[in-house]
C-alpha cells in the first residue's frame, strides 16, 4: 500500500531541479506521514535524478538512497523533488547552478542565498514546509536567513552523511530547513542518529520537544560578529533580537573569538582541498553526458571536466589541488588545520562560560542577482557561518525581522551535541516575536 501526494505547485523561483508530480509515500503512521518534503539535489535518492546542480551529473539516477532519505521514507514523508543549489554546494547565492539561479521569494530581484537556496526558496514560497539542505560553510543558515525561514546545521556527526555527495567531508552536515522552529525540530528528530555506514557519526539520537524557557541562559556575544564588514542595520536588528532574549530572562556576556581572523582562510583551504579530491571521480568514465574526444584517456578526462564543470567549481578544484601539492601542503593545508583547531578551541573556551553564542547569520541582507560578481567578495559573506563548521558545533538561523523589507537571521551557536539547546533558544525567540 502506498500513498500518493499530488505536487502541482508552480515553481516560480526555480527552486527545484526535478519534481515528482505524484510523490509516493508509506502510509505507515510515521511522524511525517504524507507530508511533502523537498531534498537538496546533492543527497542521493533512488530513482530520482541527482545532479548537485552540475551538468557533469546530468542524467545520473542513483541506485541507492542516502541514509537520511531512507529515514524520511520510513517516517512516511512524500519526497516531492530535488532542490536547486550552487553546483556541488560551491556558492553563497545559488547563482552557480547549471540549471539557472534560484530567485528569492521575498524579492525575486534578489538571491535566496546558498548553496541550499532551492530548499529555502521552496519553503519561503510555500511549496513545502520542510526541506533538507546541507551546510559546509553556511549553506543551510545563509539561505534560511536570506529567505526568512529556519535552518539548522547540526553538530558534526549527529546526522549521517552517507549518500550526501561530498564537497568537503570534514565540514559538512545535512540539516533541516523549515517554516518554523517546530518544523525544523520535527525533521531533525527524523534524520539524526548514528549510522554504521558513516564512521563519523556518534551514537546520539535526537528526541526533543522545543522548550521556550531561557531564564538564566548565558548568551555570549562575540564582538567579531558585529565588527567590520557587518551591515550596521543588520547588526542592530540582531542586537534587538538578543535584547528580546534578555527580556525573557537570558543574560548576555561579551566575548571574543580571535581565531576568526583566520577562519575564512582555513575554511577555503580545507574545503577546496577536499573538493579537489572528492570531485576527481567525475572523469566521464561513469557519469554525465558524453564529451566527444578522440584522444587518450588522460586528455579525455581533462576535456570532459573542462566542458562540464562550472567556473566556480573549476576555480575551487584548482585552488584545492594547489593547496595539497607537494611543497605547498605544509604552507596551506597543514596550516589551515592548525587554524581550524584554534577556532575549535576558541568555541570550546567561550562555550565553557556561556550556554550559547549569538550573532547575525549573515553580515548583510540578500544580495541582488549578479551583485557579487567577484569571487572574493562572495567568500567574505561566509565569515559568520564558517566558524561553526570549522569547530563542528551546532548552529541555527531563525528570522529576526527585516532590513529594507528583506529578512535578517539571528544565529544561535551551541557547544558540541547541544543541538537541542540551540533549537530551544530559537524556539523561545520565535514564540516571543510571533
Amino acid at each position, binding site marked *: 500500500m502506498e500513498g500518493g501526494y499530488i505536487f502541482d505547485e508552480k515553481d516560480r523561483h526555480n527552486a527545484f531541479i526535478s519534481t515528482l508530480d505524484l510523490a509516493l509515500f508509506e502510509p505507515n503512521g510515521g511522524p511525517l506521514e504524507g507530508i511533502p518534503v523537498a531534498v537538496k539535489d546533492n543527497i542521493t535518492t533512488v530513482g530520482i535524478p*541527482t545532479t548537485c546542480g552540475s551538468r557533469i551529473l546530468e542524467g545520473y539516477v*542513483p541506485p541507492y538512497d542516502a541514509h537520511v532519505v531512507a529515514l524520511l521514507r520510513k517516517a512516511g514523508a512524500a519526497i516531492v523533488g530535488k532542490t536547486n543549489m550552487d553546483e556541488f554546494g560551491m556558492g553563497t547565492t545559488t547563482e552557480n547552478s547549471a540549471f539557472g539561479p534560484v530567485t528569492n521569494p521575498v524579492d525575486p530581484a534578489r538571491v535566496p542565498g546558498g548553496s541550499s537556496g532551492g530548499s529555502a526558496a521552496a519553503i519561503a514560497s510555500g511549496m513545502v514546509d520542510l526541506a533538507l539542505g546541507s551546510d559546509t560553510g553556511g549553506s543551510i543558515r545563509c539561505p534560511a536567513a536570506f529567505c526568512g525561514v529556519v535552518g539548522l546545521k547540526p553538530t558534526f556527526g549527529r546526522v549521517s552523511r552517507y549518500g550526501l*555527495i561530498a564537497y568537503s567531508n570534514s565540514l559538512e552536515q545535512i540539516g533541516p530547513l523549515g517554516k518554523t522552529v517546530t518544523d525544523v525540530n520535527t525533521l531533525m528528530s527524523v534524520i539524526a542518529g548514528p549510522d554504521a555506514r558513516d564512521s563519523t557519526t556518534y551514537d546520539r539520537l535526537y528526541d526533543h520537544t522545543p522548550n521556550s524557557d531561557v531564564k538564566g541562559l548565558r548568551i555570549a556575544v562575540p564582538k567579531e560578529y558585529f565588527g567590520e564588514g557587518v551591515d550596521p542595520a543588520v547588526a542592530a536588528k540582531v542586537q534587538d533580537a538578543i535584547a528580546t532574549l534578555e527580556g525573557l530572562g537570558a543574560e548576555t556576556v561579551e566575548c571574543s573569538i580571535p581565531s576568526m581572523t583566520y577562519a575564512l582562510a582555513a575554511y577555503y583551504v580545507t574545503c577546496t582541498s577536499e573538493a579537489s579530491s572528492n570531485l576527481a571521480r567525475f572523469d566521464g568514465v561513469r557519469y554525465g553526458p558524453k564529451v566527444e574526444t578522440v584522444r587518450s584517456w588522460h586528455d579525455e578526462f581533462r576535456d570532459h571536466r573542462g566542458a562540464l564543470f562550472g567556473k566556480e567549481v573549476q576555480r575551487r578544484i584548482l585552488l584545492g589541488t594547489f593547496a595539497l601539492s607537494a611543497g605547498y601542503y605544509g604552507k596551506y593545508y597543514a596550516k589551515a588545520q592548525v587554524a581550524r583547531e584554534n577556532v575549535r578551541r576558541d568555541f570550546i573556551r567561550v562555550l565553557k562560560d556561556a550556554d550559547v553564542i549569538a550573532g547575525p547569520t549573515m553580515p548583510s541582507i540578500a544580495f541582488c542577482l549578479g551583485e557579487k560578481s567577484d569571487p572574493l567578495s562572495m567568500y567574505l559573506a561566509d565569515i559568520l557561518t564558517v566558524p561553526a563548521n570549522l569547530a563542528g558545533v551546532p548552529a541555527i538561523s531563525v528570522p529576526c525581522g527585516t532590513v529594507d523589507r528583506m529578512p535578517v537571521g539571528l544565529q544561535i551557536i551551541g557547544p558540541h551535541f547541544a543541538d537541542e539547546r540551540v533549537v530551544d533558544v530559537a524556539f523561545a525567540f520565535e514564540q516571543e516575536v510571533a
Partner: protein
Amino acid sequence: MDTDQQVIIGLEIHCQLNTKTKLFCGCSAEFQGAPPNTHCCPICLGLPGAMPRLNKQAVIYALKVAKALNLEVPEYSEFSRKNYFYPDLPKAYQISQYDKPIAEKGYLEIENDEGHTKVVRITRIHLEEDPGRLVHKTGRDRAGYSLVDYNRSSIPLIEIVTEPDLRSPKEARRFLNKLRSTLEYLEVFDGEREGAIRVDANISIKGHNRVECKNISSYKGVEKALNFEITRQRNLIRRGQYITRETRHFMEGRGITTSSRSKEEENDYRYFPEPDLRPLRVRSWLDGVELPELPDARRDRFMRDYGISVNHARTLTGDLKVADFYEQIAGVDPNLAATWVADILLGELNYRSMKIDEIPAINIGDLIALIRDDAITDKSGVEVLRTMLDHCLNKEDCPMPADIVAEAGLGKVKGGEFDAVIASVVEANPQAVSDYLAGKKGALNFLVGQVMKETRGRADPKVLNAQMSTYLDALEE
C-alpha cells in the same frame, strides 16, 4: 665481489589479504572467476555520496602481520587519500596510509647467499585498497576501448616496505619466499590467487642512483627484473655513463625493464587524511592477536621431533601446506617421509604443475609404508608415485599404491623367483661370465643389471648382487 659494485635492493610488496569481505564495504572479496562487476556496491564503485566503512578483520590481519614481523604499532594511525587519475580507480583516489601507517620498524630473518642468518629490516606496513582492473581486448577482437572490472576494487592490500638491506636478486627471492610462507602461516594471504602479490623493487649499485622497478607480479619476476637491472646498470657504469634516477616498468613477458616517463607516471599524489574515517587506535588490540607457530619455529621443531636434516626441515616448512602434509605421514617413518616428500614428491608435483593438496596424504603414507616394509624398491616406488599422480592429474580417483603395485606387478621379486632369471642371464652372456671369473669384478654389475632389466626393477639390487656372485662363484667350483 668488488665492493664498489655492491648491489643494494629494497622492496615494496603489495599482498592481498584474504578477508571474507572488502576493505571498505561488505562485498565478498572472493571474486576469482566471477563475472565482471558482480561483486560491487555503491562503496567499492565509488558512487557519489558513498562512504568507506573499515573492515575490522583486515585491521586484525594487518596486526597479525605486524606482530609476526616484529613491528611496533603506534598509538594511532590514520588513512589518507592518494589522489591520481586512472580509469580503473573509481574515486580517483585510493584510500591508503601515508605518514601514519599501522605499524613501523620490524624485521624478518632470512638466509643470505652464504647460508648465514640475515636480518632484513622492515620499514613499515600499511593497509590500502586495491583499484579495479582494466581489461583490454586483444588480438583480432582488439577494440578501440578498454573494459573496467570493479570486482577487485577495494580488496584489502597490505604494503610491506623493507629497508635497502638486500644484496642480491637471490636474496630478494628468498626474502619473498620467506615472507610469503610467513603470511600463509598467519592465514592472512593466499599466494596462489592471481595477482595476490605485486612487487616494486628499488635497486642501485653502491654509489650510483637508485632505480625503481614497478609492475613485478611474480616471485620469479623479481629475480629476473633485478638481474636484468644489475646487468644494465653495471654496463652503463662500465661505459662511464650516468644512471638516471627513474621509474622503470618490468615487462614480464620479455624479462626486461623499460623506462616509463609517460605523463600519467609523473604523479603528485596530494596525500591528505581521509576525512570519512576516524583515526585508528588499535595498539591495545595487539595483546589479543595470537600468532600460530611460524616457519622458523616449525623447522626447528621438525628437526627436534622427527630427527630430520635441516635441509629437509627447511624445505618441508617453507610451505604451510607441505608442512601440514608431512606431519600427517611423518608417523609412518619420519626420515623416509621427509626424503620422499622433500626430494621426490615436490619435484614430481612441480613437473605436473600440481599442488600438494591435490593428492591425499594417506596415499603417500601408504607408499612410504610399502617402501619401509621392503615390499617394493625405491625405483618401483617412484613408478607407483608417478602412476598415482598421473591419475590424480586427470581428475580420476587417486589409486592406492598397493593397487598399483598389484596391477603392474611391481612387487619386489623374492627368493626363488630370481633363480630362473639369473640362470638365463648367465647362459646368455658367456663373455661377461668368463670376464667375471677372470677377476673383472665390473662384469658382475653388468650381469646384475641384466637381471634388473628382466625383472623391471622389482628386484632389490643388494640382494641380487649377493645372489649373483654366489651363483657365479658356484660355477667356478
